């Protein structure tokens, strides 16, 4: 579904290389978690996967097409849903408007009833759904950001620390939703996290350090170094 082929990346105007020759594959129906220290490049990887940024080397292939060569607006709007670390909700709009707008942009049509239902499954009451984002708590905002990412039913969901602001009970509910989306609805879910609990729902766990991805095969104490392809 989504594959990174010899991906390299360095920030514009610097010589610091974040990744070099990274090869990863993501399939539908699975939950992937990416763990690693702050500054290791996890969020950069998500920016590349979401088409917000372009790799300086290699290619990201989505359903057989090079992401750098397709309409990335269309890709972001319809093919994927993203939960940003800083949430990036529209602060002056209501929770409901945020969801409906996302549905409209993706082309599925802004259905308020469906948006309210979705928010309800995230524990946001209809009354709170009509409040402006700034008048909701951090945890509520995080759940709205997750609802926005899945509202248009995209085949790929990319989430950056989606449970960072949630209490344990809500975190459990949200993880159940992600698990359900992947395992029952057959979608691909990629989560960047520091939370060990989040990794419990993962089918594959990847650890990134100094631009090198290592896969954990169910045992976090036994990292397996990713094979690098040589050109």
């Amino acid at each position, binding site marked *: 579904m989504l594959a990174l082929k010899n991906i390299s990346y360095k920030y514009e105007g610097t010589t610091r290389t974040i990744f070099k020759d990274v090869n990863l594959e993501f399939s539908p129906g699975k939950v992937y978690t990416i763990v690693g220290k702050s500054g290791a490049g996890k969020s950069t990887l998500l920016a590349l996967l979401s088409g917000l*940024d372009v790799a300086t080397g290699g290619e990201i292939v989505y359903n057989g097409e090079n992401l750098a060569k397709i309409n990335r607006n269309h890709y972001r*709007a319809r093919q994927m849903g993203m939960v940003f670390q800083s949430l990036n909700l529209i602060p002056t709009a209501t929770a409901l408007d945020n969801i409906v707008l996302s549905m409209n942009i993706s082309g599925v049509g802004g259905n308020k009833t469906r948006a309210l239902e979705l928010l309800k499954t995230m524990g946001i009451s209809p009354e709170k759904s009509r409040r402006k984002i700034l008048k909701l708590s951090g945890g509520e905002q995080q759940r709205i950001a997750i609802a926005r990412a899945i509202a248009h039913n995209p085949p790929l969901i990319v989430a950056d620390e989606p449970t960072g602001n949630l209490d344990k009970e809500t975190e459990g509910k949200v993880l159940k939703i992600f698990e359900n989306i992947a395992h029952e609805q057959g979608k691909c879910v990629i989560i960047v996290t520091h939370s060990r609990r989040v990794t419990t729902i993962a089918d594959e766990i990847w650890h990134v350090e100094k631009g090198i991805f290592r896969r954990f095969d169910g045992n976090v104490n036994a990292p397996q170094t990713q094979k690098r392809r040589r050109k």
Partner: protein
Amino acid sequence: MYLLEHAMLNLGKNKGRNMLLLGITFAIITAIVVALSIFNATNLVIEETRTSLQSAVRIVPQMQTLGETGGTGGGQMITGQAAQNQATFTAEQFSDFANSDFVLGWDLQDTPRGTDAVFYLVSPLLLSDFEAELREKGLPENYAVRTDEAAFASIVAPVESLQSLAITFLAVVVVLGGVIMALLSVIAIRERKYEIGVLRAMGLKKRKVAFVIWAENVIITGFCFVLGMAAGNFLSQPISDNILAGQILSNADGESTATTLAERLASESADALSTENFSENLQIDILINATTALQILAISLLLASLVGIISVSQITKSEPIKILMERT
């Protein structure tokens, strides 16, 4: 459709910022309404005056010929004595002149120097034919048949002054107003840079973001257009009357100091023939017709669009990832 809904929602969000934009746009559109309606009304007056006065002709002495016959000034100069020495026509002669297929009607008028007449032609194009017919009826060579240039000038001069004031004011308002609107809009859009970054990160295309901003500007402009038309309609008549009165006064002052004796004598007959001083009673009715309203709407929308393009181009240059990273 959802983009328009989003634009409408945005207008309700930041009331302070939008009220400021609304106030400025309203002031600019009102000024445009006043300036353009005065300009169009004066244009109409000038055209109507030209059409009506070109059909009104009179018999006037020819300056050069009279100067030579008077002999005191020589050349093209004419003296009061020379003018006074010229024979005027009798009412019977004027009646004979008016008995023509080219004449619709005529007025006999008393002047300090005797009797004079104004002939109203069927068409201004028949002037030379009418003059030829009068020559056959005995009109001396030192007289010519002319349109009422003096009356035309006396009406048109203050109107033209008003017109040039209106067009200058319009140009200043459009240019300065446009700059102010653009600055305000750029500041307003910069405040919304993050929101635009989020929308773009969600996959909204640049042109759709631009459409939202443009739609917001157009909605504000449309609202201000309605208010501005009402306010401009109310203000333009008194403003026009005031400026026109000033122009008539200043024209009269200018004429009294600048006119030479010869010029005064040359125009004397024309003034005398006029039973009323046109310019003193001049009133311009400012009516905003459909054409003027469309012109105002077009200028307003053009301003709104230009302002929208300038402000949007500032934001859409940046990639959404950069905007979001700046925020983070």
